[in-house]
């Protein structure tokens, strides 16, 4: 099976470039005179490290740059120690130190921003679902309540001595009307979730997965999960609604992280992969080493309002299923070994998608 570690490759590129840059500066600094303030360029190395380093590593990079500066000063002995050279070195060291300080500040701001974004995504997911469910419940409940009252009223009119048929008939007519209104509201809700307006278009599922993974970066770091993406190069462009499918992937990843947060010990491995299967489908799977699925809940996992999480809505997987089915795909869950679960869904490559 042809798989490449595209995401991993991308994350390794930056540190290597940065190390090469530091080495280049070191060589240039060592072969030039002390009067030339080459070490000032180390500030670029520190700034670049913000892109891929944590706070402590930035301090380490800054300290490394200072060490390299002093080392090349020792190696550049041929011209002797001049006053201008010492001042230049001091200025360079000061520049590196203050840049490191700024880089740390930038890094904490970035982490805060990421956390805020992840939290926002989570809150938005929960509140929109909650509000939607509450308002649908109210809209359906009103006509049902009216129907019950009208039914009781007609019974009362018929039980009267003498029975009042005219009033009873009117109440029954209203009851029928109420039932129609309730079913009309349900039809509207169905149209809404069936996605009468999904924006289907050509879609690179690997790119969609990577974009979604970026969205939950903060959540992954905070939960100390190690993420691996195994995206097959064979996966062709398919047709689908990017936002909706992103929602499905996001949902499965957040569920996986939550499942792994439930366990105290053991590795927390999250694997998101894509591949083409024998049935001419694209198969996307999200694999975790979390608490796994209890056998009794396996059959009901994708039912609306079914949840095993305290405070859960029981909507995430139900919505995911309706989105996947709307793309003529299938979604299911299996046990992972040695532990955890694998959620998989398929998207057909060239059938049933063209509207």
């Amino acid at each position, binding site marked *: 099976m042809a798989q490449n570690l595209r995401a991993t490759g991308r994350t390794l590129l930056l540190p290597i470039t940065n190390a090469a840059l530091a080495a280049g500066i070191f060589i240039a600094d060592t072969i030039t005179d002390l009067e030339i303030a080459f070490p000032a360029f180390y500030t670029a190395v520190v700034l670049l490290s913000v892109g891929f380093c944590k706070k402590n590593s930035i301090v380490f990079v800054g300290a490394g740059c200072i060490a390299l500066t002093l080392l090349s000063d020792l190696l550049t002995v041929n011209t002797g120690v001049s006053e201008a050279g010492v001042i230049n070195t001091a200025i360079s060291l000061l520049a590196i130190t203050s840049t490191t300080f700024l880089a740390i500040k930038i890094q904490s701001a970035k982490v805060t921003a990421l956390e805020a974004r992840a939290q926002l995504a989570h809150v938005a997911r929960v509140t929109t679902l909650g509000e939607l469910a509450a308002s649908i419940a109210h809209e359906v409940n009103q006509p*049902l309540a009216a129907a019950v009252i009208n039914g009781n009223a007609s019974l009362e009119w018929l039980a009267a001595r003498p029975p009042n048929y005219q009033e009873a008939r009117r109440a029954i007519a209203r009851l029928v009307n109420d039932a129609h209104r309730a079913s009309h509201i349900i039809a509207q809700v169905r149209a809404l979730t069936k996605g009468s307006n999904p924006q289907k278009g050509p879609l690179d599922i690997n790119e969609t997965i990577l974009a979604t993974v970026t969205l939950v970066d903060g959540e992954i770091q905070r939960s100390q999960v190690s993420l691996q993406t195994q995206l097959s190069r064979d996966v062709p462009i398919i047709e689908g609604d990017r936002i909706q499918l992103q929602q499905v992937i996001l949902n499965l990843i957040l569920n996986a992280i939550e499942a792994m947060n439930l366990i105290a010990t053991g590795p927390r491995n999250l694997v998101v992969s894509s591949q083409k299967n024998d049935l001419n489908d694209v198969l996307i799977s999200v694999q975790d080493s979390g608490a796994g699925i209890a056998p009794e809940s396996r059959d009901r996992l994708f039912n609306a309002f079914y949840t095993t999480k305290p405070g859960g809505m029981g909507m995430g997987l139900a919505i995911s299923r309706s989105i996947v089915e709307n793309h003529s795909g299938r979604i299911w869950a299996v046990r992972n070994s040695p532990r955890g679960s694998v959620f998989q869904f398929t998207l057909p490559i060239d059938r049933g998608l063209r509207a």
Partner: protein
Amino acid sequence: MTTSNDQAVVFVIDDDPHIREALDSLIRSIRLNVQTFASTDEFLNFKRPDAPGCIVLDVRLPGLNGLDFHCHLKKLNFDLPVIFITGHGDVPMSVRAIKAGAIEFLTKPFRHQDLVDAIFAGIERDQCRRRAIAAVSELQRRFILLTGRERQIMQKVVDGGPNKKIAAELKLSEFTVKVHRSHVMQKMKAKSVVDLVRMADKLQAGGKTA
């Protein structure tokens, strides 16, 4: 139920016209008068008949919600009993409603017997309240007929003073006190001193609330 149920009126306040229509029919079918309103303002502007009644109030209303409206009514000294109906009741909401003195808090769709029971309980509570008010105003009407001296002597009798002591305090003969005292008993239609004491209590309580 008593004959006065014939004039009892149930006021329904709900913004959903379908619920209003259904409740209108249901309440008429149990032989009660009903008036429906789409908003609290519509209800407040309505000239209420002088009859016992109760309010069936939806919690979710445009503008002021039903629970706040109930508090507002109490501030206006509007004493009609309230029955809440709601599409999405939770426990804190119902606790708040019952603490504020509501008869019942029903979640839609409710069992119709629960609503009917609550409506009759509300009307009965309102009838008791109206009877108590009527009794106090009758006593007030009688009390007004007493002369100044008679009111003075009634107060002293109620406080438990014997005729001799009252006569001494007011510098009257014991015979004059006896005459005034029997006038008080007649005018207040009191059967005994104990009866008179009870009337005085009611007058005092009624005077405070009025």
